[in-house]
């Protein structure tokens, strides 16, 4: 019977492709919008992910995210180092500064001061140059987003000079970093250099990055740090989460994308529901005949289920492929840099497709189930 069901479905090309379009469009809309949403809010955690060594971030109790921070006295580093379970701890400075480019333009940049000796706090990979270029005096490493903001395409930023707080800074490398939410240009430099690049305030140490000894859980050590130093310590996942939550709480992004996703869902329900109902209505006599001949309601539901399943599979596939192609095509664009499709999202849209088909299928099948087989004689 499923053989017949599939042929009934594909025999009506117009409705079949209409259904595919409906499901595919919904899947594309839901998957793609959720992907952009997740990637966009995850930009709030880019600062955390750009420092891959840090298992624990220690900060002033009022600091909230990598960008919303309040500096601590320099001895905070030693306090953290004193806590048992802390394998290592290094200073980390994040501050805003104004930079004067060669053309004389003033641009706001984020200056990130990484540990002088070990350069812990740098992104994992470099696009150009080595991390060790930071050991040179006055050297900074710019992130790749900043390169596109400061320099025309094709111009290598290596060796370019910037003026930071009346100090000379020379770009010696380009880091392969995840852009921040605001796509601010980021300059990495050594902690001691950063102190000079950033206008002086009393306390400068914004974060202490810490590693954890083997055999101790980061959460436990973070709790210990909080207890013994009075500072705030968050493990990497939680601090990333804080950054994401900050974006979610302080921007309209969730609402916007939420609306689009709901629209995608509603459009899917509408298109698929209408088309499916029309399809079933067109075939209601055939279904009635089948019922009279001796096909149980269960098998009729199986047939409609198979039709929904085929439409769902192909439509879903088209939508997911569309999203993957979209992300791949735009991955070169700085706005989409580092965008990925979290594996959960296709599952979410799969569930949405199943729900759409379940709703519309049930609505459509009701008329079939209610059809009296006796109707075929009238």
């Amino acid at each position, binding site marked *: 019977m499923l053989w017949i069901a599939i042929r009934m479905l594909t025999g009506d090309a117009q409705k079949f492709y209409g259904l595919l379009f409906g499901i595919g469009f919904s899947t594309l809309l839901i998957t793609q919008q959720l992907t952009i949403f997740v990637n966009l809010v995850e930009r709030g955690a880019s600062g955390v992910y750009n420092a891959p060594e840090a298992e624990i971030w220690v900060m002033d109790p009022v600091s909230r995210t990598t960008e919303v921070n309040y500096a601590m006295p320099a001895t905070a580093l030693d306090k953290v180092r004193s806590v048992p379970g802390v394998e290592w701890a290094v200073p980390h400075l994040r501050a805003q500064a104004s930079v004067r480019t060669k053309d004389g333009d003033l641009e706001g940049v984020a200056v990130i001061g990484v540990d002088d000796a070990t350069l812990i706090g740098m992104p994992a990979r470099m696009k150009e140059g080595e991390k060790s270029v930071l050991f040179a005096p006055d050297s900074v490493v710019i992130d790749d987003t900043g390169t596109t903001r400061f320099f025309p395409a094709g111009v290598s930023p290596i060796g370019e000079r910037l003026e930071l707080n009346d100090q000379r800074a020379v770009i010696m490398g380009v880091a392969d970093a995840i852009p921040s939410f605001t796509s601010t240009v980021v300059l990495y430099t050594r902690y001691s250099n950063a102190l000079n690049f950033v206008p002086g305030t009393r306390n400068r140490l914004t974060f202490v990055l810490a590693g954890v000894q083997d055999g101790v859980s980061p959460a436990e050590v973070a709790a210990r740090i909080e207890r013994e130093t009075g500072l705030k310590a968050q493990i990497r996942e939680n601090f990333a989460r804080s950054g994401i939550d900050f974006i979610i709480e302080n921007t309209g992004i969730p609402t916007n994308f939420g609306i689009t996703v709901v629209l995608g869902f509603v459009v899917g329900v509408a298109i698929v529901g209408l088309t499916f109902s029309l399809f079933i209505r067109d075939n209601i006599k055939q279904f009635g005949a089948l019922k009279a001949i001796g096909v149980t309601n269960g098998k009729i539901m199986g047939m409609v289920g198979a039709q929904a399943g085929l439409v769902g599979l192909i439509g*879903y596939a088209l939508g997911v492929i569309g999203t993957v192609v979209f992300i791949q095509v735009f991955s070169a664009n700085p706005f989409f840099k580092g965008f990925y499709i979290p594996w959960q999202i296709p599952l979410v849209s799969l569930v949405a497709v199943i729900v759409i088909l379940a709703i519309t299928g049930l609505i459509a099948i009701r008329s079939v189930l209610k059809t009296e087989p006796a109707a075929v004689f009238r």
Partner: protein
Amino acid sequence: MALLPEGGFRSLSVSRQVLPVVAAIGVLVAAYLILTNQPDRTISDPAEMPAHADGALADGPRVAGAGVVEPSSELVSIGTSLGGLVADVRVRPGDYVTKGQPLFTVDDRALRARLEETGAAIAQARAAIAEAASAAETAGRQLELYRQVEDAAAVSRAEVIRAEGEAQAARSRLNSARAQLQAAQAAAGSARTDLERLTVRAPIAGEILAVHVRPGEFVQAGAQQGGNSAPYIEMGQTRPLHVRVDIDENEAVRLDLGKPAIVSPRGAADQKVTASFVRAEPLVVPKRSLTNSASERVDVRVLQVIYELPPADGRFRVGQQVDAFMPARAKAAK
């Protein structure tokens, strides 16, 4: 499927066979792309290990601090007691000097001239003494001669008084000349002392750490402190070296004084040495930031604890920053 109802001679149905297969392959490819493009969020180990405690301190209670290497004598800034042009510098940075060894000399020509002057004055005084002595002798003999004359008429009373006066004057001149000699000798002594002071000598045995003076430069006494000029010579006892560790006052109470510390130089966390306790400074001082300008305002006070570094073939140098880990007193959690 030769039985396709659409009849035709197509061997494949787009909607029933091509599409589902394409869809299935597409979903698999998409799943592969999605799963392989998941971002790398793993925690990576530091390429280079920062300063960290190990051994017993790794697990036990500990206090961390940043410190600076200094000579065990602390840093001695050598000045000069007399101003003048530098004539000769006898040491170079890195020289190990004994106590009293000349470090540099200041131009002594003026003093030597004064010494010659005083020599002349001494000779002059000596001549004056000789002259006064001979005059006194002449006057004395003449007076004696007059005294021996019985005949009062032969020598007038006035003659006698004149002779007595001359003898008296000659004795006074002699005394005066002797006093002049003493004065000239004293002046010569003074000049010799000053000459000695023009050679600046090491106050202690130790290593010359910095020389900021060169022949021909002008040095002057006293004024160097407080200005931005460096001391002429810096030296200190570097056998052994000490390390002065700043410990946050909040942490200081936990410190187990008297126990050795683990010290590693900045940037070479793996080269750890054990440093023995020397003393804790009785005065808690404002934290001096080691990385920033001197004008930084601070609200953190630190206890400074001195540890003695073992001999370590140039791994530690005076003024170098170090990371130190020290045992803390075992205690219940705060």
